[in-house]
């Protein structure tokens, strides 16, 4: 098999993967909308919808942004700021919830 043919097959396989990822993204979008429309308890709906969003983001990051082929340092470049604002939220939420429950800080 010539190099050109192998290259063409690789490109076709790559393109098929990208189309499949797109199909999954559309499917997950529809699934999220179904969760929103159906009469599901709010907490469960919110957790499910954001889990679906995280999966969609993961698909784009790993496949379209090629993070799955990258060095660990690029994973950390993305992960560290995400953990920073997550940590900020988790640090502040108990205080805010406590103050809201007591009716303070309005």
């Amino acid at each position, binding site marked *: 098999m010539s190099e050109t043919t192998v290259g063409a097959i690789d490109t076709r396989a790559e393109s098929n993967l990208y189309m499949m990822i797109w199909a999954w993204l559309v499917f997950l979008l529809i699934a999220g909308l179904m969760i*929103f429309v159906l009469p599901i308890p709010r907490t469960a709906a919110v957790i499910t919808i954001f889990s679906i969003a995280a999966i969609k*983001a993961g698909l784009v990051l790993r496949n*379209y*942004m090629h993070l799955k082929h990258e060095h660990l340092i*690029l994973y950390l470049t993305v992960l560290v700021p995400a953990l920073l604002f997550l940590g900020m939220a988790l640090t502040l939420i108990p205080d*805010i919830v406590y103050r809201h429950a007591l009716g303070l800080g309005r």
Partner: protein
Amino acid sequence: MSAGVESIPLVVETDRLREIPIGRMAIWWFLASEILVFGGLITAFVLYQFAHGGFAADAEHVKWRFGAFNTLVLVTSSMTMIMALASARANDRRRTRMFLLFTILLGCFFLCVKGLEYRGEFSEGFYPSSGMFWSFYFGMTGLHALHMLAGIVINLMLFIATGRDNTWEFLQRRIEYGGLYWHFVDVVWIFLFPLLYLT
């Protein structure tokens, strides 16, 4: 071969970290700073909801169908962007230009739909000063729309570059970097849509 002469290894281990192109590393660092920008806004929105019992009354007025349609447009544009890169790696100029053009058009379509949404909200009397929810809503979606506009300009420049006599290595690198930015804008919307429209 005489004793004491060391043989040269046939396989030389390279440092994978040094193999990362500087441009790719720079783009990821830039995206990390953008994560902090949007992450800060999203965190502030979430914390404000905790502090003030949510935005149920205001959030009922957002048009989730527009948001859902725009999400479909944006994920499709992400697909066309990565197909442009795949075509560039296959040295197919025609398909590269075609997919870049689709990406640009889908991005413009997204902004048009967003504009229609804003017009509807203004006509109902909702402005950025109408309350905290609307401040967050217009602030976050407006900032995202500005990022989309920048992405469209970048893709337009790439589209023009593919029509000129540039080497494939030059084009592939730049389409890859432009694509990383475009996909990041898509990822941000993937979280903004449920945050502002669905929950």
